[in-house]
């Protein structure tokens, strides 16, 4: 196939190529619960990591969050080995997660050996020792709100296929959505939001910016507050956002 596919080719649907965010939510929801899974967004992200490992495929996967000051936390991983890999980059102070977070773009390293000399003199040899030959990191972000990164590990060299690349982006988008969602939605099992289309209206992002300034909180937190208010009041997020932008509604600072 010579044609580069973004989004979709009109008139032709390929079930796997066209897997969008909605399908990724279903894949994660179908991923069996384990007794060790936590009952919060962390547990949901553990399942996301396991679903992603099978779908992409990959040998390991992890999601790490970074605080505003760059302080990292490993949030979830597909296996204990992947937790070790996630932590390694923070111990060494360099790696794909930090780079994806800093540059706000995917960091694609199909051959870790090549990166040893230039990119990551400490991290690259360390992961090679653990059998990782390729790493790919995707930032978890929504506009200017940055949360962390999703890291993909493979035991063989080589680029992600176009399809895997799109899937990886979709998994990162779902991880971001989950983290920005009100935490109470993850009590027990995660659910896909009812109407993602509405959530993606520009007015929602405008309201997010207004709430950030009104409550003097960070941008990601502003989205969490906005959504929590909408869920608590049983209203669509976009409708609440319209009220905020029209200045008919101001969220309470302690809501």
């Amino acid at each position, binding site marked *: 196939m010579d044609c*580069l596919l*973004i989004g979709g080719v009109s008139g032709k649907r390929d079930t796997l190529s*066209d897997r969008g965010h909605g399908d990724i939510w279903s894949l994660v929801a179908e991923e069996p619960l384990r007794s060790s899974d936590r009952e919060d967004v962390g547990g949901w992200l553990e399942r996301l990591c396991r679903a992603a490992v099978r779908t992409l495929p990959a040998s390991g996967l992890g999601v790490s969050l970074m605080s505003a000051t760059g302080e990292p936390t490993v949030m979830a991983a597909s296996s204990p080995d992947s937790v070790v890999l996630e932590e390694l980059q923070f111990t060494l102070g360099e790696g794909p997660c930090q780079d994806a977070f800093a540059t706000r773009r995917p960091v*694609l390293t199909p051959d870790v050996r090549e990166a040893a000399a230039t990119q990551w003199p400490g991290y690259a040899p360390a992961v090679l020792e653990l059998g990782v030959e390729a790493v790919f990191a995707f930032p978890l972000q929504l506009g*200017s709100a940055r949360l962390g990164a999703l890291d993909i590990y493979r035991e063989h060299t080589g680029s992600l296929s176009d399809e895997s*690349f*799109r899937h990886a*982006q979709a998994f990162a988008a779902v991880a971001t959505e989950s983290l920005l969602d009100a935490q109470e939605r993850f009590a027990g099992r995660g659910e896909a939001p009812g109407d993602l289309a509405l959530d993606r209206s520009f007015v929602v992002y405008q309201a997010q910016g207004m709430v950030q*300034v009104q409550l003097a909180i960070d941008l990601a937190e502003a989205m969490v507050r906005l959504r929590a208010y909408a869920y608590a009041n049983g209203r669509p997020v976009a409708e609440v956002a319209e009220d905020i932008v029209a200045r008919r509604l101001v969220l309470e600072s302690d809501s």
Partner: protein
Amino acid sequence: MITVDRLAAVLVEAADTLVDDFDLIEFLQRLTTHASELFDVDAAGLLLADADGRLQPLAASDERAEMLELFQVQSAEGPCQDCYRGGAAVVNADLLNAGDRWPRFAPKAVASGYRAVHAFPLRLRQEVIGALNLFSAQPGQMDPADMQAVQALADVATIGLLQERAIRRRDILTEQLQVALNSRIAIEQAKGALAQIHDCTVDQAFDLLRNYARSNHLRLGQVAYQVTAEPDKVPELVTPTPRAP
């Protein structure tokens, strides 16, 4: 009708995507501005399909919220949706008589003062990646020569976006597009923040953002990011304007 030399100049610019500091949002913004100026239409917008195949407005010659909504509603229905799905241009659609075809889009467009709408596919061979959308306040037919010129502009822009990047790395456009969509979101977040800081509308906030970027020779996306993530880097922009007594 457009002159040959104007068209040639714009086409060359549209093809010039291999510069080192290429920025997709700015490229598309220039394209929509050219399209609206050259073809005697009142507004132009550019929509690209995201990873889910949903059309997202990325740039517009007119950034008013009302206008952005007209582009955004087309992720569900409208001339761009038809154009994207069918792969063919939708031209000279009479908005006053389009209520059956586009029950949500048409009345909105009429209420915004438009009478005619056109959508041209951004297409390379079998692949459609988005649409160029033109609005006119006057009913009537577009000059056939202008239609060809608009499609040529759309084609050259598509080749510029797809082909060269495909040679360098196949996944780079997907990535570029994702970065552009994310910049668009960052711009909307910054509009909201600035509207709150300056107690103005989001449309006025966009003007503040754009004027600041232009007068400081900065990219719109970069300034938008700084407004919400690194406000200390743009102090003049995020300091509330004192109210007149």
